[in-house]
């Protein structure tokens, strides 16, 4: 344990030192080296814990009321630590190349906050005391706020930062309420001594769900994601979307594992939230024009898939279905890890594109595979993985969720069948729409002809960015092959976090442990088939003419790249099919002449929850607060008086 803490302190220290390094390039490199070196002992210990299954812990008393410095690494923490280490290291290396264009600025500050973010997230998954947890949680949230607002000379970035910090603190407020109530019942906030939740267990669960759900980006608490992710530098978006929002998922899982029992309706709630997040998330993703905004909405969708898994697991606990418990939670955990890999990769790829072309608008790009073949290579791996395409890692998490749902339909009664069928139908629809969304992103941005001069002249990304992107890309491939070996570990984690499972669980466990082998055999057969067919084609074409020509243009003499299908036109049929839900709006000029010289079409998809829920609410609050302005004098003495009066009233209330 001391090695892990030393590693984390090392990360923070290198961050502090980088504040004093003047040269921008060396500064980011120093910070990245600190992260990698600091996380090496963390990864070693985490692997050790995952292999042995035995948790390690350290508890030091603290003067803070209810507080103690109590940290522990069990298998669940170790799994998330691995994801944090991989994602942060890759992003740090990427940052070295990405930040070169900002080298006239002092890069010590973002480097410092990046290291703080990494250390904060590591502490979040290790903390076993409510106060320590909240401290780590705030370090993580504040560090990421300063990173989101790195480009603060832009109005839109400041606005995004503002939305983010308000959202994250609303979430923290709910978590504080959660811990205060828990502390009231138990007299302590050490996680291992919390056991009493009273009759308000459901209230507590809801508090935790809102608090953690805001960070995770559950619809309709997701509004900060599509604002903050495009605003932040790309390696920051990669870390935020890859692992930071997963801290919300971690929190929900940890809450479930601490709670002595669960209610059936919690599972239903999670499934429905998951379905809403999943379907609406991917539909909004389809409707976006900005590549990073689209990826942010896709994160909402994937959080939805994870929630469906958690919901199935909770329903499994509540109704004693072992299959659902194992497959639901294992699927959710595996998808969490998988998503941390491919979403980091995709954000880094999107960053490379924005960096080389100066725009994030998909309709202005195209044909980048020629200028940026290496970025295109990793991006297509990420896009295929996030669609759940078989030989890659994304398939395995979704497979577990499907398999668990199917198995539950067979073995359990009708009561079990309704949630699982809902899950199957939603997962199928989400999967189909995700395929549409990611073929669109890859196809429109990287394939076809360049739509603008910037896209045509795009240069390959810096080698550090390419190298960094290959870390998650390689892991996407590796997890796809090694999934059968990883699954028993994940199943063991599930058994540790769900002590309430009833009956004989060994059959579900053994079926889970062997389920991936035939899939991997099929994947390998696929590779063999593909290689054979490729060789066959090469032999066929050996002595034949392989000619180059233009794309078939129907005899039209002067095709331009503007004739191509755009991102908006590609997704238009689906978006307009769901236009009642999406509030999709378009403006177009009616064509009246026979040979029109120009035409115009403009489409726009505002976020329904920020448009129809938050905007009116915050407007109302603003109006109300405006009326309260008479209490604000701006004189310090008056504020001291306010504090004194408040204290007096509280005292009187207490003594009453």
């Amino acid at each position, binding site marked *: 344990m001391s090695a892990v803490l030393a590693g984390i302190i090392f990360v923070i220290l290198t961050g502090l030192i980088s504040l004093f390094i003047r040269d921008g390039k060396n500064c980011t490199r120093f910070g990245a080296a600190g992260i990698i070196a600091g996380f090496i002992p963390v990864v070693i210990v985490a692997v050790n814990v995952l292999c042995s299954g035995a948790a390690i812990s350290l508890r030091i008393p603290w003067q803070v009321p209810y507080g103690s410095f109590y940290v522990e690494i069990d298998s669940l923490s170790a799994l998330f630590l691995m994801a944090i280490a991989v994602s942060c290291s890759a992003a740090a290396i990427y940052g070295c190349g990405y930040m070169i264009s900002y080298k006239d600025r002092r890069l010590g500050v973002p480097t410092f906050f990046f290291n703080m973010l990494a250390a904060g997230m590591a502490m979040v998954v290790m903390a076993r005391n409510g106060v320590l947890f909240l401290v780590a949680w705030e370090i993580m949230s504040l560090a990421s706020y300063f990173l989101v607002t790195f480009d603060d000379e832009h109005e839109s970035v400041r606005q995004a930062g503002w939305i983010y910090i308000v959202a994250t603190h609303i979430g923290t407020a709910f978590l504080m309420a959660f811990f205060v109530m828990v502390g009231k019942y138990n007299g302590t906030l050490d996680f291992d001594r919390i056991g009493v939740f009273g009759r308000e267990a459901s209230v507590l669960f809801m508090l935790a769900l809102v608090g953690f759900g805001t960070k995770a980006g559950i619809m309709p608490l997701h509004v900060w994601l599509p604002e903050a992710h495009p605003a932040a530098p790309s390696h920051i978006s990669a870390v935020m979307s890859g692992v930071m929002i997963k801290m919300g998922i971690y929190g929900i899982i940890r809450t479930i594992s601490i709670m002595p029992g669960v209610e059936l309706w919690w599972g239903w709630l999670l499934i429905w939230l998951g379905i809403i997040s999943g379907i609406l998330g991917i539909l909004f993703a389809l409707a976006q024009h900005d590549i990073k905004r689209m990826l942010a909405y896709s994160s909402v969708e994937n959080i939805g898939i994870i929630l469906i898994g958690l919901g199935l697991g909770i329903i499994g606990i509540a109704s004693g279905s072992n299959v659902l418990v194992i497959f639901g939670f294992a699927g959710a955990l595996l998808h969490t890890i998988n998503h941390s890999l491919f979403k980091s990769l995709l954000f880094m790829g999107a960053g490379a594109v924005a960096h080389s072309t100066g725009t994030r608008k998909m309709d202005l790009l195209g*044909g980048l595979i020629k200028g940026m073949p290496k970025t295109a290579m990793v991006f297509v791996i990420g896009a295929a993985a996030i669609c759940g395409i078989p030989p890659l890692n994304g398939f395995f998490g979704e497979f577990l969720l499907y398999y668990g749902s199917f198995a539950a339909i067979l073995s359990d009664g009708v009561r079990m069948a309704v949630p699982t069928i809902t899950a199957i139908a939603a997962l199928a629809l989400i999967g189909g729409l995700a395929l549409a969304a990611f073929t669109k992103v890859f196809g429109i941005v990287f394939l076809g002809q360049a739509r603008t001069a910037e896209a045509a002249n795009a240069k390959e990304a810096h080698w550090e960015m390419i190298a960094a992107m290959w870390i998650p890309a390689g892991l996407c491939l590796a997890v796809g092959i090694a999934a059968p070996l990883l699954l028993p570990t994940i199943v063991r984690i599930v058994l540790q976090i769900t002590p309430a499972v009833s009956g004989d669980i060994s059959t579900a466990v053994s079926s889970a442990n062997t389920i991936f082998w035939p899939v991997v055999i099929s994947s390998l057969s696929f590779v063999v088939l593909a290689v054979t067919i490729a060789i066959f084609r090469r032999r066929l074409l050996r002595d*034949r*003419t392989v000619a*180059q020509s233009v794309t078939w243009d129907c005899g039209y003499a002067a095709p331009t790249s503007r004739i191509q299908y755009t991102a908006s036109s590609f997704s238009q049929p689906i978006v307009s*099919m769901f236009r009642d839900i999406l509030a999709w709006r378009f403006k177009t000029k009616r064509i009246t002449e026979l040979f029109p010289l120009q035409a115009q079409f403009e489409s726009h998809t505002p976020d329904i929850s920020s448009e129809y829920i938050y905007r009116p609410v915050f407007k109302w609050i603003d109006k109300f607060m405006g009326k309260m302005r008479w209490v604000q004098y701006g004189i310090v003495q008056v504020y001291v008086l306010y504090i004194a009066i408040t204290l007096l009233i509280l005292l009187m209330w207490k003594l009453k």
Partner: protein
Amino acid sequence: MINFAMILQPVLGIVLAPMLLGVINRVKANFAGRRGQPVLQPYYDLRRLLHKGVVYSSTTSWIFKAMPVICLSAVLLTVFIVPIGCDKTLLGFNGDLILVAYLLGLMRFFLVIGALDTGSSFEGMGASREVQFSALAEPALFIALAAMARQTSSISFSGIFSAITPAVWTSNCATLLLAAAAMIIVLLAENARIPVDDPNTHLELTMIHEVMALDNSGPDLAFIMYGAALKLWIFAAILVGIIVPCGAMSLWLSMPIAVAAIFVVAILTGIVESCMARLRLIYVPHLLFAAIALAILSLVFALRN
């Protein structure tokens, strides 16, 4: 253990699949009062294409060249999984129906990005429609499979197919019929058949599948055509598997019957294509919603027992 039937089963699909297209074309020709092309015409087409060179558009990249190979490998793999009147296949396992659906997803992913690689608006249109319709066909397929899984207490194709007996038909015909109806719609949609798509018209603005392969030539086009034939074979095999009660027969009876039934499906497809017009594109989602509704109904009946 590997037995003769397990070897024969993929060979049947690999050899006979193109003939399905020949049969459909022959039926359509007969309905139109023509004599029609030979049933073996697809084989001649494939041979001719395999003997040609290729032309690549200068817009395209390696994605376009990899696409036919990957699409064909993905669909070939499913042929080794879905049984034809037998109880085991080489690569079948518990949960294989999820893998098959996702392998078809792999095929679609590459077909779509291969189409977008050409930078042609025709191919873009086809790709856009393909992803739209298949996103709606996916839930119908999964719910219908879930209904069959519930009905037969099995999560593999071989388990589901071998549990279909005349006794199941007499007691649960509603489930089977509704699932089959949903599967027929999915089959027509996924294989780009009328009323969803018209495989005969090249270069019409209404095209889906054919237009995505507009710029492919030579062996690449042969791979795509052959892949499409195999995909039709797979869907027909799934449909036959949940309708024809092969579970009660011996292997040497059930295999020929299943193959014959697959060709009956091809004939029916030809009849549908001859009797119907293609739907307007905006009405295709309605058809697919109907498939989802049928599949859900089927599941409701399956839950009763």
